[in-house]
């Protein structure tokens, strides 16, 4: 496996398309929340697209992913269908979790997507276990574990970093450091705000990368995965990013200034890549327009799929509380 990123036309197109799909999906989700098609807690990913697209582009199909509750982007980048994801947000039984999970609990067996986890830091021990299971079963897969800067405050982060290092497990810890744990600013929560440095305490290699630059993230992720495979040790990749929207749909954003948001918007990962591609002539405006049109059609189709979806009968409410077999 190579840790090089080939910026050929097809790959660049893939990176831009993947980020735009997330951006447009989130815009539509926001709209649908306003019109009360989607309810519950919903956390949008706008601004952070480069992180999941960059990291997941570096993964193989056999690798596993543990996500966060802000995981629409992670799910789409992994290849979970926009239609079943939207149906899940609608709560329809055609959704990827039959409408049981909703926005915060997206799971997908076929892509080894192990949630969607609404307990901050809750996914990290699961990622340790996934990597442990793979290793004990003789598989070579890596588990990529996404979490936010808020999870670094939790004991589970520290326990999991230590366990993964101690047991030499192939976990790529990906910190989506968007500077706020809900409304709690990183510098108000952590005495050491440089998250990548914390890895040293566990003898875990780490790197901090510009999380607004998809190519930089992908290069760093490929390098990290190559190192994981070579050393049989976990790796912590801190991606410095920013969420453009409120924490959830109930957040007046009293804890940060409009000016700060504007400063980060100027680093918009989608706009950055798009401008670079247009400036260098790697992708023409026509082609971008075509990509946008395809995505718009995909979003429309996803909404239509969700609208046409059906409600799981309440008679099935208790189905899967306990399982009668382990799904293969």
């Amino acid at each position, binding site marked *: 496996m190579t840790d090089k990123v080939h910026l050929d036309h097809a790959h660049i197109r893939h990176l831009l398309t993947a980020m735009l799909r997330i951006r447009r999906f989130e815009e539509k989700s926001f709209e649908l929340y306003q019109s009360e098609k989607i309810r519950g807690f919903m956390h949008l990913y706008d601004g952070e697209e480069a992180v999941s697209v960059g990291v997941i582009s570096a993964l193989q199909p056999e690798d*596993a992913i*543990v996500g966060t509750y802000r995981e629409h982007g992670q799910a789409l980048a992994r290849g979970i269908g926009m239609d079943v994801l939207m149906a899940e947000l609608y709560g329809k039984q055609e*959704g*990827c*979790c*039959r*409408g*049981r*999970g909703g926005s915060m*609990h997206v*799971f*997908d*067996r076929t892509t080894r997507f*192990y*949630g*969607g*986890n609404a*307990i901050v830091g*809750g996914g*990290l*021990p*699961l*990622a*340790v*276990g*996934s*990597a*442990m*299971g*793979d290793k*004990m*079963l003789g598989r070579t897969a890596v*588990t990529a574990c996404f979490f936010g800067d808020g999870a670094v405050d939790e*004991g*589970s982060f520290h*326990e*999991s970093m*230590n*366990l993964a290092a*101690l047991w030499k497990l192939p976990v790529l810890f990906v910190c989506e450091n968007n500077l706020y744990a809900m409304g709690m600013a990183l510098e108000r929560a952590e005495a050491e705000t440089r998250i990548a440095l914390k890895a040293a305490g566990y003898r875990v290699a780490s790197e901090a990368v510009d999380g607004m630059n998809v190519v930089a993230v992908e290069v760093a992720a490929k390098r990290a995965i190559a190192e994981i495979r070579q050393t049989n040790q976990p790796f912590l990749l801190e991606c410095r990013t920013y969420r453009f929207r409120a924490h959830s749909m109930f957040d007046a954003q009293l804890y940060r200034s409009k000016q700060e948001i504007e400063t980060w918007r100027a680093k918009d990962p989608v706009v950055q890549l798009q401008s670079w591609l247009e400036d260098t002539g790697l992708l023409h405006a026509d082609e971008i327009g075509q990509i946008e049109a395809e995505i718009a059609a995909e979003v429309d189709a996803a909404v239509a799929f969700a609208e046409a979806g059906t409600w799981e009968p309440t008679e099935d409410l208790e*189905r*899967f*509380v*306990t*399982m*009668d*077999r*382990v*799904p293969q």
Partner: protein
Amino acid sequence: MSTPAPLRMTYREACKQAIRTAILGDPRVFLMGEDVARYGGCYAVTKGLAQELGEERIRDTPLSENGYVGAGIGAAIAGMRPIVEIMTVNFSLLALDQIVNSAATIPHMSGGQFAVPLVIRMATGAGLQLAAQHSHSLEGWYAHIPGLKVLAPATIEDARFMLQPALDDPNPVLIFEHIMLYNREGELDPNVTGVDIVSAKIRRPGRHVTILSYGGMVFKALEAAASLYEEGIEAEVIDLRVLRPLDMTTILQSVVRTRRVVIVDEGWKSGSLSAEIAARISEDAFFDLDAPIRRVCSREVPMPYAAHLEKAALPQVATIIATARALVKPG
């Protein structure tokens, strides 16, 4: 044909044999927990197993309960069949998040895409003067949670054979081993090669009153029943064995016959398993009862260290006898 002689062993030895057999029988099974390997287990259940089976299959963990319980869940989802040992139920509180928020929810929340075939064993209960932070009986808390199965082996046979069906079960199964049982000796019928993890069992038949108990309390209930028999009161002792889901069929059949119930539970009364069982009996067999349901539970105090206070806080045989007698021979 001669009948093979019964095997005499301790509860601890039965637990150990169960683990050994399970690991030898399935390459996906391994055990991890604090001090299970080189130390041999806090209650010496796994003593010597790491030397025989290797430190990958009997794996020492750091003191990271939430971390390694979560790792067990992740490994189960990835295809392994982990047995996670938590040293005591008290420490399991540090792993409540993973047990309640992950293991119990993932199958339902994922729409049935993932099962969590995981076994978590832990020691529970009081009686060794370990004071307030090492004497809890919190199995009733876990029995509150949909998605979990909760077992309480009391007999040598259950200690020996409940583990395998728990591992074969596609759901997270919690096994509570009462600390006062580990040294208890008993005989294992060599003709028994397995048990179910579904049903409650009548350990002593009787017709005047039903005593419901589980785990460490089963033997106090049996002792009380033997004493009551001398007075002409025939108490039926039921060992619940499975705390979730409860085998209400066996419970109700007995209650309908005896028409009187004493529930013996080492947990506290408030918001407890004994409260749940009493409520269900009231809902489904109210008109079959000749007397109010009575409970013998721990006093509502953090467990004190001093022996006489600990004894005063725990359900005792004399109280069970008095409670049952008052139901059968009022006044």
